[in-house]
């Protein structure tokens, strides 16, 4: 396997899954070409201005920023459905339509839904 696509469809903070997907993607960067695909509730991860200090958990947007070489694809229809289209988003991510999102999954050697 030379490339991996991690698929995250769970909202951040309510569950460890977003944190787990980010960590798995980060360690995979050393050996493979890595894409993190955000779909469904996973797209909440890219709203700018997250501050999780008071919640006492890691700031997931900080983790996103610290792995600039990680390709992050956001499924735009999911974003629109959830009312996030007019929100300020983290700049390092790529909004893609459904065609491009599925295309990226197809062109990766493996897809790991988290």
């Amino acid at each position, binding site marked *: *396997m030379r490339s991996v696509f991690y698929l995250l469809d769970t909202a951040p903070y309510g569950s*460890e*899954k977003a944190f787990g997907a980010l960590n*798995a993607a980060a360690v995979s960067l050393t050996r493979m070409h890595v894409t993190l695909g955000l779909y469904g509730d996973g797209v909440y991860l890219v709203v700018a201005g997250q501050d999780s200090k008071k919640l006492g958990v890691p700031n997931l947007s900080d983790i996103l920023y610290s792995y600039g070489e990680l390709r992050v694809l956001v499924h735009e229809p999911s974003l629109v459905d959830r009312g996030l289209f007019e929100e300020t988003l983290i700049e390092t991510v790529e909004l893609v339509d459904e065609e491009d999102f599925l295309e990226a999954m197809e062109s990766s050697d*493996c897809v*790991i839904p*988290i």
Partner: protein
Amino acid sequence: MKTLTIVLTDGPYISEYAEIACKIAESALKQYQVNIFLYMDAVHIPKKSQNPSFFTSAGELFTGLAEKGAVIRACARCAAARGYIAEEETANGNNCEDYIPGIKISSLYELSEMLSKSDRVISL
């Protein structure tokens, strides 16, 4: 020999994935190398002394797999969070006394190593 890696993220009983992974691994082990990486709640799967009244013990299922040659590793961060502590290696080929024989706690980097050396990856 081709290699299959199975990634698990759910704990036993609350989901059926430990059983499904076991059936997949049993089939694959006849011809292929099988790796299993336990992530997040899946680190509960190899816990000793599980005694479900109406289901098959996940620990027993995975004991069988390790004996048949599957390489089974658990994420160190997830394991520590859930109270499974890695120690010096014991005689049973594991490094956590709460785990069944043959399962090791290791770094998440082992996941990326398993993936990069695999022909196929199944994530449940």
